[in-house]
């Protein structure tokens, strides 16, 4: 495997559409629940250990070669908010486009054929990671880190937060991201024996509720 492939896939410049999504932080900023780097840290940490863990486990299982269609169904069951399902599929389609150009292979073409409406983004991420020669643990890291990097970047734009402070928030979360990725990869390792139901389903009521509220706003800066 190439470690650099991990940097390409996880890098903020990978053109997969993430820049237009705030990961729920736009709604939290509007509710004044996130207003500085301390509240941003709490937001990112909560999202990491809920939606981030669930996504990381799906990505790890997909990277380990488990059936993307089964995992996509598991992702649907873990994503009750339709706004978040639509976002996950949209980002999945966008990621698939970038991955097909970067690491063309039959597995990615098959995914495009089997789920023309788009697979959930973490599932695509796992298949893409595998196509790039990366491991299940790598895929989990990319997914987990993406769940904190997105809101941190969006908070800089929404709050005019000092970008150095936002980066320091991410640096403080490194151990948490590692732990979540480890837990996710560990669960993915049990799918062969126990089925996809063994994957974490960590959820957060506020992320589900505010995602639908945000989707109903007439004016917003971010798509989600």
């Amino acid at each position, binding site marked *: 495997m190439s470690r650099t492939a991990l940097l390409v896939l996880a890098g903020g*410049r990978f*053109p*997969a*559409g*993430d*820049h*237009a*999504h*705030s990961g729920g932080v736009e709604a939290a900023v509007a509710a004044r629940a996130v207003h500085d780097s301390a509240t941003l840290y709490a937001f990112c940490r909560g999202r990491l250990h809920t939606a981030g863990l669930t996504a990381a486990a799906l990505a790890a299982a997909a990277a380990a070669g488990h059936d993307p269609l089964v995992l996509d169904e598991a992702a*649907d069951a873990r994503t009750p908010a*339709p706004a978040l*399902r*639509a976002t996950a*599929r*949209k980002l999945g*389609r*966008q*990621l698939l*486009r*970038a991955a*097909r*150009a970067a690491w063309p292979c039959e597995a990615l*073409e098959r995914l*495009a*054929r089997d789920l*023309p*409406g*788009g697979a959930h983004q973490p599932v695509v991420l796992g298949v893409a990671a595998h196509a790039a020669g990366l491991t299940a643990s790598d895929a989990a890291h990319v997914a987990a880190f993406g769940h904190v990097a997105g809101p941190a970047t*969006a908070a800089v*734009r*929404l709050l005019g937060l000092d970008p150095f402070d936002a980066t320091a928030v991410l640096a403080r979360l490194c151990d948490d991201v590692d732990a979540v990725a480890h837990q996710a990869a560990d669960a993915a390792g049990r799918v062969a024996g126990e089925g996809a139901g063994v994957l974490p389903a960590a959820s957060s009521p506020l992320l589900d509720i505010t995602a639908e509220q945000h989707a109903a*706003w*007439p*004016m*917003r*800066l*971010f*798509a989600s």
Partner: protein
Amino acid sequence: MHLDHTHDGSGAVSADARRPDGTRRALRIGLGGPVGSGKTATVAALCRTLRDRYALAVVTNDIYTREDADFLLREAVLPPERITAVETGACPHTAIRDDISANLEAVEDLEDRLGPLDLILVESGGDNLTATFSKGLVDTQIFVIDVSSGDDIPRKGGPGITTADLLVVNKTDLAPHVGADLTTMASDAARRRGDLPVAFTSLTGDDGVRPVADWVLERLTVWHHGTARPEPATATP
């Protein structure tokens, strides 16, 4: 049982000239330019001029969701299903240049939903003089500036002014009021752009968008003859 799915077609990887079913896709023209220069008004005027003869659709890239799309809807220049707003996360130039995936989704989705189209206009969010479209997104691009922002804009240059396939200098009717010298603007633009064309427009008059519409019609003719850009080495299956 999935109740969610709405999107069909696996899509091309990038701006391949053919759709997945092998048919030639619509010509995609990007319209960029600074805030307030008249991009949306130009799009609206083009739609009114061309909609009876060609199958059209529009993608807008708003800073705040749907502002420009809503303007076009209010003006009723096209039916609502032919206008799509792409959300840009406060970074309109990223969405048309560095990460075009959401815009590619939008243009492909329009053709999937509406059937074969002749032309899709992709309007950028109002940005600065450096914002240009990726060639992976559009086939050709128009950059719209206006006289009221100063007649030295063409001289200052920037990628939009220098490299756009058509430069539009809009609001010429205001030139006497803001002290803009159109001759200077024309000669500065020519110096910056070499052989690339410049159109002067005033959308307040009847058929004011004609110079732009004529240029678009030329591009359409070339596109239909399949020579606007080289075919990709490997055609999409």
